[in-house]
C-alpha cells in the first residue's frame, strides 16, 4: 500500500448543517477547505433524512386534510385521494434533492473540495479516507492519508436502537419512517419526542391510525404542559392514540406487520401494526471513526468537550453540531459552524448566544426560545409572565386557526426579555422575533413600543409585551 500522504489546510468531517456551513464560512474567510462526506449526498441528516423531508410530509398531510374538509368556509369537497408514491417522489425530488444539490452547488461556488469517503482518525494531525458509497473515486484500498492543519468534526448523530426493537423491515428508525412505501393502516411510534410527534401528526393526517408509546408522563417533554396539552388535544382529534408512562418491551416482526409489546405499571399489552418506528433519541457519532486515537476528550455521554469557540482539548481540532453539548438542532450547528470557521481564521468569535430557539411542527406548531416560566422558577430568577391567546387575534380568527397563545418571560426587576414560547398558527415563523428579543436582550417595553402590523399573527407578541408593561390592550 503506497503511503501517499496529502497535506490539507482545513478539513471537515461531515457535510451536515455543521460541516457544510463551516466549509462555506471558512472558505469566505480565506481558508482552503476540504469536506469529507461518507454519504452519497451532502447535507447530512437534516437535509436528507431529518428537518427537510419531515416538513414535506407534514405539508402533504395538511394539504390532504384541507382537500378533505373545508366546510367551515362554505366549501364542499368530494373525496380526496392520495397517491403516496407520488407524495414521496415530490418529497425526494422536488424538496430533498433540490436542497442537497443546492448545498453541493454552494460548496462548489466556494471552492470547497468535496471528498466522498469515510474518514478515520489516526492521531491528532492525520486521518485516512476510506472509499464509500457509489461515487468511489479512490481505489487504493487502505484509504488516502491526509495530514490536516485544522480539523472540524461534524459527524452528527444516529438513531438509538433499544432492546427488543432491532431495526429491520417493520421496526424502523426515523429514516425508515420518512421513506415508507405506503401510508400504514396501523402505525406505532415509540418515543413521543419532537421527531416522533411530528411524524405522528403527519401520518395521522395522511390516513394512518397512529399510536404513540411514550415512556414519560407527557409527550414532547421539552415543551411546557400548557403548550403540549393543546397539541395533544389536536392529535387526539386526528385519531392518534397517545399512551404515556408506557415502557416498550419488545417487538416481533410478522409476515406483513409487527407485534409490539409495552408495559404500563408492569402490565403488558401487545398491539399489532404495519410498522413500528422507534424515535427515542439519537447518539453522537463519536465512537465510530477513530476519535479514540486522538487526544480529543469526550464526556461520559459521548459528546466532544469544546470551549466557547468550539475548540476541543486538541488545539487544532474543533467540533460542532450534534456531537457537542446543547440541543441537537440544525440551526445550533449552523451557528457553531460559523463560530469555529471564524476562530480558525483568527477571529474572536464565540458561541455566546443567549437562547437557541426550538420548533416543533405539530398542529398547532410549538416554538420556544430562552427560558420558560418553569426554568425561571427552577433557577430562582424572579420573572413576570404574560400570556396572550390567539383567540384574541383577528388574523388567527380569519384563518380559522385561533388556538394557542404567546407567552413572554421577562426579568421582574428590569423587564429584560428572558424567554418566549408560542403555541399556535405560524409559531415557527413568529419565534424568530422572540429570538431577536432574547438574544439582543431587548426590554418588554421595546417590543410593546414597536408597531406590529394588523391583522397579523405577530400581534400577540406585542400584546403580551403590553401586558408585561402593565397596559394590556386586546385582553
Amino acid at each position, binding site marked *: 500500500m503506497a503511503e501517499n500522504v496529502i497535506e490539507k489546510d482545513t478539513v471537515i468531517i461531515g457535510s451536515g448543517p455543521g460541516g457544510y456551513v463551516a466549509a462555506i464560512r471558512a472558505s469566505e474567510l480565506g481558508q482552503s477547505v476540504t469536506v469529507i462526506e461518507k454519504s452519497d449526498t451532502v447535507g447530512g441528516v437534516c437535509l436528507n433524512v431529518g428537518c427537510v423531508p419531515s416538513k414535506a410530509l407534514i405539508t402533504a398531510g395538511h394539504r390532504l386534510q384541507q382537500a378533505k374538509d373545508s366546510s367551515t368556509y362554505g366549501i364542499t369537497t368530494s373525496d380526496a385521494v392520495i397517491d403516496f408514491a407520488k407524495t414521496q417522489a415530490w418529497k425526494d425530488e422536488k424538496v430533498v434533492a433540490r436542497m442537497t444539490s443546492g448545498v453541493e452547488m454552494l460548496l462548489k461556488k466556494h471552492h470547497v473540495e468535496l471528498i466522498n469517503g469515510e474518514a478515520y482518525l489516526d492521531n491528532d494531525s492525520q486521518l485516512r479516507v476510506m472509499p464509500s458509497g457509489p461515487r468511489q473515486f479512490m481505489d487504493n484500498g487502505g484509504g488516502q492519508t491526509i495530514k490536516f492543519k485544522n480539523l472540524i468534526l461534524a459527524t452528527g448523530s444516529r438513531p438509538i436502537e433499544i432492546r427488543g426493537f432491532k431495526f429491520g423491515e417493520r421496526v424502523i428508525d426515523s429514516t425508515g419512517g420518512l421513506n415508507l412505501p405506503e401510508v400504514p393502516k396501523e402505525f406505532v411510534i415509540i418515543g413521543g419526542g419532537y421527531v416522533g410527534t411530528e411524524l405522528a401528526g403527519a401520518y395521522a393526517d395522511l390516513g394512518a391510525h397512529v399510536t404513540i408509546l411514550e415512556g414519560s408522563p407527557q409527550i414532547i417533554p421539552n415543551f411546557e404542559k400548557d403548550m403540549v396539552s393543546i397539541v395533544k388535544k389536536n392529535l387526539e382529534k386526528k385519531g392518534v392514540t397517545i399512551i404515556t408512562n408506557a415502557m416498550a418491551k419488545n417487538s416481533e416482526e410478522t409476515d406483513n406487520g409487527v407485534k409490539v409489546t409495552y408495559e404500563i405499571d408492569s402490565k403488558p399489552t401487545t398491539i399489532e401494526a404495519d410498522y413500528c418506528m422507534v424515535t427515542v433519541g439519537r447518539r453522537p457519532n463519536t465512537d465510530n471513526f477513530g476519535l479514540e486515537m486522538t487526544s480529543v476528550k469526550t464526556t461520559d455521554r459521548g459528546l466532544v468537550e469544546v470551549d466557547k469557540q468550539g475548540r476541543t482539548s486538541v488545539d487544532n481540532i474543533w467540533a460542532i453540531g450534534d456531537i457537542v453539548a446543547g440541543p441537537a438542532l440544525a440551526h445550533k450547528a449552523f451557528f457553531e459552524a460559523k463560530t469555529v470557521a471564524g476562530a480558525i481564521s483568527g477571529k474572536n468569535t464565540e458561541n455566546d448566544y443567549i437562547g437557541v430557539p426550538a420548533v416543533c411542527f405539530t398542529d398547532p406548531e410549538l416554538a420556544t426560545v430562552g427560558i420558560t416560566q418553569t426554568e425561571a422558577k427552577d433557577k430562582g430568577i424572579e420573572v413576570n409572565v404574560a400570556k396572550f391567546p390567539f383567540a384574541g387575534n383577528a388574523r388567527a380568527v380569519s384563518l380559522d386557526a385561533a388556538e394557542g397563545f404567546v407567552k413572554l418571560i421577562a426579568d421582574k426587576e428590569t*423587564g429584560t426579555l428572558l424567554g418566549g414560547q408560542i403555541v399556535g398558527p405560524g409559531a415557527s415563523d413568529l419565534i424568530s422575533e422572540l429570538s431577536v428579543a432574547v438574544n439582543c436582550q*431587548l*426590554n418588554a*417595553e*421595546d417590543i410593546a*413600543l*414597536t408597531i406590529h402590523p394588523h391583522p397579523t399573527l405577530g400581534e400577540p407578541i406585542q400584546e403580551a409585551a403590553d401586558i408585561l408593561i402593565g397596559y394590556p390592550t386586546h385582553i
Partner: protein
Amino acid sequence: AEATGSANKDYLAMPSVRQYARDQGVDLSLVTPSGKHGQISKADVDSYKSGAPAASAH
C-alpha cells in the same frame, strides 16, 4: 402612497430608551453612546444626566 419610514441618523436608541430619555428630559442627540454600533443605553442617559462620562463600550 405615504412614506412609511424615516431614517433617523441623529442617534441610535431602542424605543424604551427613547421613552426613558423623554421622562428624564434628556435630549438623546447630546448623549454619548456606549453600544458597539452607537446604541445609546439607559445607563448612557443616566451618565449624561449626572454629568459623568459615558460608560465605555465593552
